[in-house]
């Protein structure tokens, strides 16, 4: 790979890649996301490779193993370009037919396309399937168009042009200003404006500064960051380098899961390729800007996704959070200013630089801009990764995209934010997706795990489940969290087993108030959120369990 030494050379390279491509050449894009992989798509991929070889089509047809397409429910998914024909639930036995009929014969195979279970309508193209049609896929949409292991494919889609624009046409202050104007808010849970955080880190005293990608994603029911990071690692990396330039950092860290081999591998490949092209390392693109990245792995504890705990872990210590009188953006890893953002936040950066803050702020609601990735799971017809603009109502997500509740059941509640989030009853389903609106209802968006619950769900049991999870994941450093959650779990377990007593609810409220006020980090502070939200909307279930002394679960 040649090193790229200027913005012009980057554009020439891009032109070279594009000129070698025939837009009409058929390409079979096979989803190799975690879900489809678990469904055996590796056999589908090898079947395609064999079939193409058998028919000696290697020069005429491309096969691409891509990141997650999003429609996990119907995997293994494949898309055939340039027609964008979508086939679902593909098996190795379907492969010869697909190659001869669709790839060569341009015929659609009826049995493999999506059929709407309600209307019976068939949809052959991605743009016609309700699951995709009702989304706005600015971030995740490119997953099916690139091989995550090929930087050239990312470059062909205009990749690293935002980096080049930042380095050569904008000052660090201008980049920062653009992100601030875009009102990009942190996607990891807090919704804190990324631009302000960057500014704090930039202005913090000290020469050495760090930027960090938080790819921990430990929340049960959240899998969108993995889908994005595995499927399009360069988009996150490009955002990170731009952020480092704006902040004045020369060292970055990626903190991610050790238990996703594919994710680890794709990140490692992306870093090597970017380095070889001179997009990472010394004198990036000949601009004089230096930046290196190191990968660190989480090792199976939820709390290490908390920013100050994560930073301790990078230092090689136990991931115990610290109080944040001083923000990590001022004093983080080794007491140096450290700016941490979530995977999705970083991935938003290149498009803001490329298309401008004005374009970006035209999407979304007044205070929540852009799109949001959602992991849709639970009692829902279409489980998968979804991307919608802020302002989309929860009803649209559940019914238009998610396809509603399976087995003809009724919806009971939608739970956001995993074990530290909250549940919203069916009656509030017309609430728009918005950081502040949902927080007001006691169900903050969190990282974007949206968990759908049907009428058979016992809310006391759901609460018990989350409290049980947090009891195991609390680091144990501070008493309000360690003991508070344990006691809440005890009481909720009693209630759910029909052993609840009068006064239990009040006691729960009291403990949660103390844990919320006195815990060191967000884990303890928000541990009682599921409890409080279910007490707010489903109090009758607790009361019934206590009064009738029985277990309704």
């Amino acid at each position, binding site marked *: 790979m040649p090193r790229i030494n200027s913005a012009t050379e980057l554009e020439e390279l891009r032109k070279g890649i594009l000129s070698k491509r025939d837009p009409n050449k058929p390409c079979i894009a096979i989803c190799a996301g*975690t*879900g489809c*992989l*678990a*469904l055996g798509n590796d056999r589908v991929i090898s079947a395609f490779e064999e079939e193409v070889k058998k028919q000696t089509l290697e020069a005429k047809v491309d096969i691409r193993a891509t990141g997650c397409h999003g429609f*996990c*429910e119907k*995997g293994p998914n494949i898309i055939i370009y340039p027609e964008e024909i979508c086939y679902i639930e593909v098996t190795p036995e379907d492969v010869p037919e697909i190659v001869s009929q669709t790839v060569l014969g341009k015929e659609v195979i009826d049995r493999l396309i999506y059929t709407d279970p309600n209307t019976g309508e068939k949809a052959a193209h991605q743009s016609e399937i309700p699951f995709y049609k009702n989304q706005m896929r600015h971030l995740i949409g490119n997953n099916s168009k690139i091989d995550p292991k090929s930087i050239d494919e990312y470059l062909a889609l205009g990749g690293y042009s935002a980096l080049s624009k930042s380095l050569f046409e904008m000052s660090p202050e201008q980049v920062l200003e653009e992100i601030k104007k875009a009102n990009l808010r942190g996607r990891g849970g807090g919704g804190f404006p990324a631009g302000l955080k960057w500014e704090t880190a930039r202005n913090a005293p000290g020469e050495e500064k760090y930027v960090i990608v938080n790819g921990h994603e*430990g*929340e*049960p*029911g*959240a*899998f969108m960051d*993995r*889908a994005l990071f595995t499927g399009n690692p360069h988009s996150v990396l490009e955002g990170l380098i731009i952020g480092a330039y704006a902040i004045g950092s020369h060292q970055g860290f990626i903190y991610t899961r*050790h*238990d*996703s*081999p594919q994710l680890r591998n794709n990140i490692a490949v992306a870093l090597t390729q970017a380095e070889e092209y001179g997009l990472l390392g010394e004198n990036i693109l000949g601009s004089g800007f230096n930046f290196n990245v190191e990968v*660190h*792995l989480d*090792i*199976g*504890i*939820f709390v290490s996704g908390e920013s100050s705990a994560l930073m301790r*872990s*990078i*230092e*090689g*210590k*136990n*991931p115990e959070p610290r109080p944040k009188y001083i923000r990590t953006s001022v004093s983080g890893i080794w007491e140096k200013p450290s700016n941490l953002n979530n995977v999705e936040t970083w991935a938003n950066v290149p498009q803001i630089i490329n298309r401008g803050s004005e374009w970006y702020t035209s999407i979304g609601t007044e205070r929540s801009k852009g799109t949001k990735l959602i*992991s849709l*799971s*639970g*009692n829902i017809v279409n*489980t*998968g990764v979804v991307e919608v603009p802020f302002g989309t109502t929860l009803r649209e997500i559940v019914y238009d995209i998610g396809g509603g509740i399976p087995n003809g059941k009724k919806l009971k509640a939608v*739970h956001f934010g*995993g*074990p530290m989030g909250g549940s919203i009853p069916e009656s509030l389903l017309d609430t728009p997706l918005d950081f502040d609106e949902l927080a007001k209802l006691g169900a903050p968006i969190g990282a974007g*795990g949206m*968990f759908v*619950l049907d009428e058979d*769900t016992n809310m006391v049991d*759901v609460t018990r*489940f*989350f409290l049980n*999870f947090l009891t195991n994941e609390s*680091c144990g450093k501070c008493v309000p969290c360690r003991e508070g959650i344990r006691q809440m779990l005890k009481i909720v377990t009693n209630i759910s087993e029909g052993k609840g007593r009068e006064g239990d609810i009040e006691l729960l409220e009291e403990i949660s108030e103390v844990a919320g006020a006195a815990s060191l980090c967000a884990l303890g502070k928000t541990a009682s959120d599921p409890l409080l939200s279910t007490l707010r909307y489903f109090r009758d279930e607790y009361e019934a369990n206590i009064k009738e002394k029985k277990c309704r679960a």
Partner: protein
Amino acid sequence: MDNARIDRIIDKHQGEASSLIQVLLEIQSENHWLPKEALERVSEKLQVPLTRIRHIATFYKTFSLIPKGRHEIHVCTGSSCHVRGATRLLDTVQDLIGIRPGETSSDLRFSLETGNCLGCCALGPEIVVDGKHHSKIAPDNVEDVLKDYD
């Protein structure tokens, strides 16, 4: 696990104390557990007190200070698998192999763990054996899956 292998891992990380967690992780993934001798070697080479190493090794769930079985069974108990029947699945697995989560069978055939969400919420409930996902699995089929792992 002999010292040469441990040294190789440490050298790869340039022997820096900040790489302690990554070094332990590599030993764990090669050896499936962290023997006392290995920890002592790491302590000596990285110049980190053994107490701090044990502090870390006992804190993170991935690390094990006792031998693990040849096959690692992981039952997903994330929220989506939970509503789709993970509890019943876990009960079945426990009954079949006779151990509880965190334990290893006496013949060292299996270790059992419950785990956080593995990101396959569309496919739950599921068990993962040595990294291979067995999705949408009913308790009745567990025996069939496990018999292939000796």
